[in-house]
């Protein structure tokens, strides 16, 4: 398995609009209007901000359940997740499972790796078309 690049870094924030305004006003970072929004299934809303070849994903929990809400409850704001781009998500998942790692089934080109298999780092794999 070969990781291609850092796709994005997920950052949990309490107030998405406020965080976006802060980073746009003071850092010049502008969110990509074509991506992000409400994701009820995950209990979040998010926005992607390109910085060079990678993105920062700002994530606000919108419900009290799910990993983002748990992170926000336990740790407040901060770096939450690292997303790695792979060439073939199905092959990557099969490879990791072959090594004994616990990985969720890919869905829409995205798979999550159990933190029990990463020394505790919250990892996501993504395949871009």
């Amino acid at each position, binding site marked *: 398995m070969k990781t291609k690049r*850092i796709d994005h870094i997920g950052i949990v924030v309490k107030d998405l609009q406020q965080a976006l305004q802060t980073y746009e006003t003071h850092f010049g970072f502008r969110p990509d209007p074509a991506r992000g929004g409400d994701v009820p299934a995950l209990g979040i809303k998010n926005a992607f901000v390109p910085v060079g070849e990678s993105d920062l994903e700002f994530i606000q929990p919108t419900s009290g359940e799910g990993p983002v809400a748990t992170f926000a409850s336990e740790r407040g704001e901060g770096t939450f997740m690292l997303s790695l781009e792979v060439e073939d998500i199905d092959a990557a998942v099969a490879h990791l499972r072959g090594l004994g790692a616990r990985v969720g089934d890919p869905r829409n080109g995205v798979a999550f790796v159990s933190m029990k298999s990463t020394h505790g780092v919250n990892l996501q794999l993504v395949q871009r078309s």
Partner: protein
Amino acid sequence: MGIGATHIDHIVIQSNDSAATAKLFADQYGIEIKRTMSRPGTRAHLEFAKLQEVIVEFAGPGEVQPYDEVKARLGGFVLAVDDIHAAVTSLRESGWDVGEPHPAVQPGALITGVRGRTNGVPLALIQYNARPLEENSQ
């Protein structure tokens, strides 16, 4: 208005056994470790990989307790900027608490930390080619 950030220069993965965590990422994800070092003046053990333009830094203590369960977490990241002094001035004028740029480990680079208001993210700025290379030998 902005700070002239060009890209994410590096991201830190903190671990109580950075060598073990780096090995896990190398073995499972094909992230090749390019460099290993102990930071001068500290007991830190650092291992570095690079994925295109982003350096992945595995940071941990120099001495690892063998009975420790390996625990790691995502730390902060460093933004590369065109002009670190201009970036620092811009942020300070907006009320940000930013340190004075100082020589980084990387040859010719200056680095500084941005404190507070970063939504819980440990954040730093780095500029490469910011000082004469001969300063590195000092």
